[in-house]
């Protein structure tokens, strides 16, 4: 197992290098520089600024400079937030995104599984139809439609919850964005749980158990639950990616100072180092999380444990 994990981590290094090179080329290929503005700088000041940030060097020199910084763990200074380094910014934004992501993820898993199981156990009933329908709608309606409508209802009209991040504190300000972010994932997980539970319940060994007179409840708990959860585990990777993507929109709508918002601002402002830093950071995160999911899968599924 340990050897497998190490091999996987080593195997991820080329991926990371590819990410870094791609991101570097793309940000520098984008037209316009980080310091362009409608108020155009006098040429001598433009030259001073370029020199201060090594933008007067060739692209290859800049890439080597960046890589050598990266090896030392230095993501460089931010061009937009001139008092901060990229590491500072990610360090500040990450806890916020993590809080939001974890809340959404746990909401999605708990509510999604509960709804999916309920539907599966009463297959073709009205409850099942209701869950299936709501889940389908949850998948279909984009999050940027749901989120503003929720703000309008719960923050502006009803005044139950804060409209934005800074308007509240603690859990209250996490509720609306967390729920909005979780909704599509709840829908996916509910559908997945329902389908996989139904499949397991109609499998031979469950039928055998049933023939032996076991009650549905104990069949579900002792025989069906674990195998039914396996497809869910492999969905966790895509789910995490989905939540990362969704958080870009959610952070924009609710004004949450998370990593996604920094990325968009960084891309629009040509904050080269900030964009690179976030891309590298996210790629690393996704690689590690996928590895964790794989290892978990190995632990839970005896069939592939020997690998």
């Amino acid at each position, binding site marked *: 197992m340990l050897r497998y994990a190490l091999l996987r981590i080593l*195997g*991820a290094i*080329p*991926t990371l290098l*590819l*990410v870094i090179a*791609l*991101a570097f080329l*793309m*940000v520098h*290929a*984008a*037209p316009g520089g980080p310091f362009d503005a409608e108020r155009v700088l006098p040429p001598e000041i433009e030259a001073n600024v370029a020199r201060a940030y090594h933008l007067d060097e060739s692209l290859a020199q800049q890439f080597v400079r960046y890589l050598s910084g990266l090896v030392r763990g230095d993501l460089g200074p931010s061009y937009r937030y001139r008092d901060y380094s990229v590491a500072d910014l990610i360090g500040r934004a990450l806890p916020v995104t993590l809080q939001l992501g974890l809340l959404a993820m746990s909401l999605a898993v708990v509510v999604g599984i509960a709804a999916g199981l309920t539907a599966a156990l009463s297959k073709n009933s009205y409850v099942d139809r209701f869950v299936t329908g709501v889940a*389908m*709608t949850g*998948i*279909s*309606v*984009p999050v*940027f*439609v749901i989120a*503003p*409508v929720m703000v*309008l209802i719960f923050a502006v009209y009803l005044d139950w919850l804060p409209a934005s991040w800074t308007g509240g504190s603690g859990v209250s300000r996490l509720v609306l964005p967390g729920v909005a972010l979780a909704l599509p994932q709840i829908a996916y997980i509910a559908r997945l749980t*329902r*389908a996989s539970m*139904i*499949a397991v319940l109609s499998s031979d060994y469950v039928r055998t158990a049933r023939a032996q007179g076991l009650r549905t409840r104990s069949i579900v708990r002792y025989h069906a639950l674990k195998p039914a959860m396996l497809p869910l585990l492999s969905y966790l*990777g895509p789910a995490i*990616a989905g939540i*990362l*993507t969704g958080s*870009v*929109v959610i952070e*924009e709508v609710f004004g949450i100072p998370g990593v996604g918002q920094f*990325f*968009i601002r960084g*891309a*629009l402002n040509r904050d080269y180092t900030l*964009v690179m830093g*976030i*891309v590298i950071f*996210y*790629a690393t995160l*996704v*690689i590690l999380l*996928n590895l964790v999911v794989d290892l978990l899968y190995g632990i839970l599924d005896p069939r592939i444990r020997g690998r």
Partner: protein
Amino acid sequence: MSYLAAIKPIVRKSRENRTIVVSLSILLLIGLLALIGPWLSPHHYASTDFEHSFVGPFAGDWHLFGTDDLGRDLFVRTMLGVKVTLFVAIIASVVSLGIGVAYGAIAGYVGGNVDAVMMRIVDALYALPFIFFVILLMVVFERNFLLIFVAIGAINWLDMARIVRGQTLSLKQREFVDAARLIGVSGRGIIFRHITPNLFGVVVVYMTLTIPQAILVESLLSFLGLGVQEPQTSLGALVNGGVGNMERAPWLLLMPAIVLALILLCFNFLGDGLRDAVDPKKKT
């Protein structure tokens, strides 16, 4: 086996499935309306009328869905949005399909080390934060309509490649492939003349599931202001514009949002139904 023969059983089964029939009918209806609707309306999608901005739905002068902030007819614009959105989504799906099928079929058919390497590359690409690259792509290449298709297609081909590879692996064991090999058909011939037609059913099903994903990505890009150029529009762009006006003129959000949700719902139901029709074992 021809491509046509491959979908015959699907068509037969689909006729019996109510979900498929209903969602396909709604989709066709919306598509038809998008094509002929603008002909029936007296308004043009780009003509502004500053004296009649924010007219409510059904409120005279044939503004079925009302008008927007510049007095443009929302019905005609929504229909244009449907056309553009479906076009983007279908092209994107075809791109992802082309890459995914070729990649997956080759990996699955050749097998061995080639397969291992090719699938490792897919795994590696899965780790790329694609949405970030799409945003960067849009920034680099400005607003290039064609590029939106390619970018979205480039996101979605990975799933397709995995599915096709799996199918190919099992098809490879079948007798007709052995027979073809015995009579001397080349590897390329087997892949494209014998294996891919048999994949057709699965591919069609997954394409109906890829389209709503592509629609979502397109509307996300529109939400971030990286979509099509005015006065052209897409459903995502219309919804995004409606969000800003949702208090003063809720129909600007609701009308395109309902149409968008309806299209996505129908595609998802259609995909579900077709999957059941193709693979009865997975019936849920």
